């Protein structure tokens, strides 16, 4: 669809500048929220624009931002501190708790641009932890929340058990290197063949142009500090999407979190043929369809 409009902004967390990126169909009217707002929260290993607005040479339909913009959303994301086009404070680990502060800074930008104080939010992997913690901390800011590749306690998680073997390394430095082989491993560690090979290459190319390292804080949090959020504190309508082959958590751990969510407007979706990075998998349109259906729920008539 033509008419894709985009803009970039700078949110400030103290003196740390954070890149904010926005896409929608058609230019906005300043100060007006004329479309439903959707905010996308990235995870531990690549920045927001690289993951959610990826251009894969010779391939169509990899930008989640554009898919949702074409469905009528005003789509926003940010690069968290230490990632992509954002600043990285000296010695900062960029833990999940700091990611929540990043999101608060971004919300101020969105409110200034649109006047809106609430939006739907999607987070994947440690982005789901940031989003859930943000929803718990700022319940008035999140309308509907979708959490994918989420982990609650981490008990029994194959990916985290493997990752924890290097916990001393993550703790000893706030930086971990990323390269093409690492990006390929994200897509192949669970179930090879659930994503196209070109995707990891495009993602690595996109990230390599911006950085050679990413912060270790979210890895440490996921290996040593779980749980970071209790389901009882997430009070908004919540969708939990679990990919069949995702080793970041067990089915039981994720279901335990979901079953205790207090808002009875909630959904648990298990998706077959998907691995950890579902937004970039072969079945991403199924994944996006589930999110869109959840975000576009008609309003309640009994309140």
């Amino acid at each position, binding site marked *: 669809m033509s008419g894709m409009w985009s803009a970039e902004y700078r949110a400030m967390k103290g003196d740390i500048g954070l890149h904010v990126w926005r896409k929608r169909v058609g230019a906005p009217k300043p100060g007006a929220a004329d479309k439903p707002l959707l905010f996308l929260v990235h995870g531990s290993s690549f920045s927001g624009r690289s993951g959610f607005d990826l251009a894969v040479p010779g391939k169509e339909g990899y930008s989640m931002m554009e898919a949702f913009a074409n469905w009528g959303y005003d789509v926003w994301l940010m690069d968290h501190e230490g990632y992509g086009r954002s600043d990285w404070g000296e010695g900062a680990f960029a833990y999940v708790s700091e990611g929540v502060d990043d999101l608060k800074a971004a919300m101020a930008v969105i409110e200034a641009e649109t006047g809106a104080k609430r939006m739907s939010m999607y987070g994947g992997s440690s982005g789901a932890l940031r989003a859930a913690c943000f929803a718990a901390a700022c319940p008035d800011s999140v309308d509907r929340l979708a959490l994918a590749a989420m982990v609650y306690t981490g008990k029994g998680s194959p990916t985290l058990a493997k990752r924890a073997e290097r916990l001393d390394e993550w703790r000893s430095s706030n930086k971990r290197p990323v390269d093409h082989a690492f990006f390929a491993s994200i897509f192949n560690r669970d179930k090879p*063949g659930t994503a196209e090979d070109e995707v990891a290459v495009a993602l690595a190319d996109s990230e390599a142009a911006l950085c050679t390292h990413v912060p270790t804080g979210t890895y440490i949090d996921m290996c040593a500090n779980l749980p970071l959020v209790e389901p009882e504190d997430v009070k908004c309508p919540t969708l939990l999407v679990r990919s069949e082959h995702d080793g970041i958590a067990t089915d039981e751990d994720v279901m335990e979190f979901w079953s205790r969510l207090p808002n009875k407007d909630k959904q*648990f979706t*298990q998706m*077959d*043929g*998907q691995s950890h990075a579902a937004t970039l998998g072969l*079945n991403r349109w199924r994944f996006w*369809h589930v999110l869109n259906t959840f975000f576009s729920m008609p309003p309640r008539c009994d309140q």
Partner: protein
Amino acid sequence: MSEIWSAEYTAMKGDVPLYMYRKHEGAPDPGAARPVLFLVHGSSFSGPSGFDLMVPGRDDYSLMDAFARRGYDVWTLDHEGYGRSGRTDGNAPISEGVKDLIAGVEVVERETGERSYFFYGQSSGALRAACFAAAAPDRVRRVVLDAFVWTGEGAPTLIERAKRLDQWRASNMRPVDRDFFHSIFNRDLPGTSEEAVPDALADAELALCSEVPTGTYLDMCANLPVVDPLDVTCPVLILRGEHDGIATEEDLIAFFQRLPNQDKQFSIIAGQAHVAPLGLNRARFWHVMDGFFRMPARQDPYEDEDRQKIEERRRAGGRS
């Protein structure tokens, strides 16, 4: 917008005639078949009364119309002993309801040429639909189980209903009247539906009958579980009204977790009670159903392999 087209059919289960009703936006075009959605009613009222209800002064209560407008070819059936279908001296338990559906899908196939359909079942209709999906997996594309119950453990409605188990066992039929229809909508949480709805439902049903079979009540009070989740191999959506006393959330989660097909969803609809398709928030309910049925096709290379694994697990009864 085209007019909604409708037609009546009769399925035969042996010598028992079963009434079927179909709605479609415009007349069906054999060259442009729409996805078939088959709606399965519950214990206390017939298919068209519940799924095509006309509430005076309102035009937005028919689930059949809503889904016909969304592009589906919508069918329902009155089970043996209900509505416009034949009566026998039996009590029409779940197992008979499955036979009704086996007869019903033959009519759908004859009329549409399609063999596999979306199914939606409500309350004991969800049990019928799940059992049918287990018995005829090649006829069910995706199934929505609404107001479902698995073991029944701890279910407030079933605990209350079981107090009259001797009565359900003593007679194959139970009387229904206007007060009963009101009780369906008010037993969980009054105010989750409009008062005009049970009146309209009572008007529709009492014109057809004064009693309904007891078999599904008996099954739900004394014979659960009637289906093993491992046997339901298609994609499943478990849909639950927040205030529905027919099952506990724990019971449904346990069923959901055992479903072998990893394309599955569990949705709770806030502010809804047992008869969610006729509640105030029915548009939310329909939205979730529609989204589930419209899931795009898989693009990964593992679909056939997954289907084999599911079938192996079903045959092994979960021991593999």
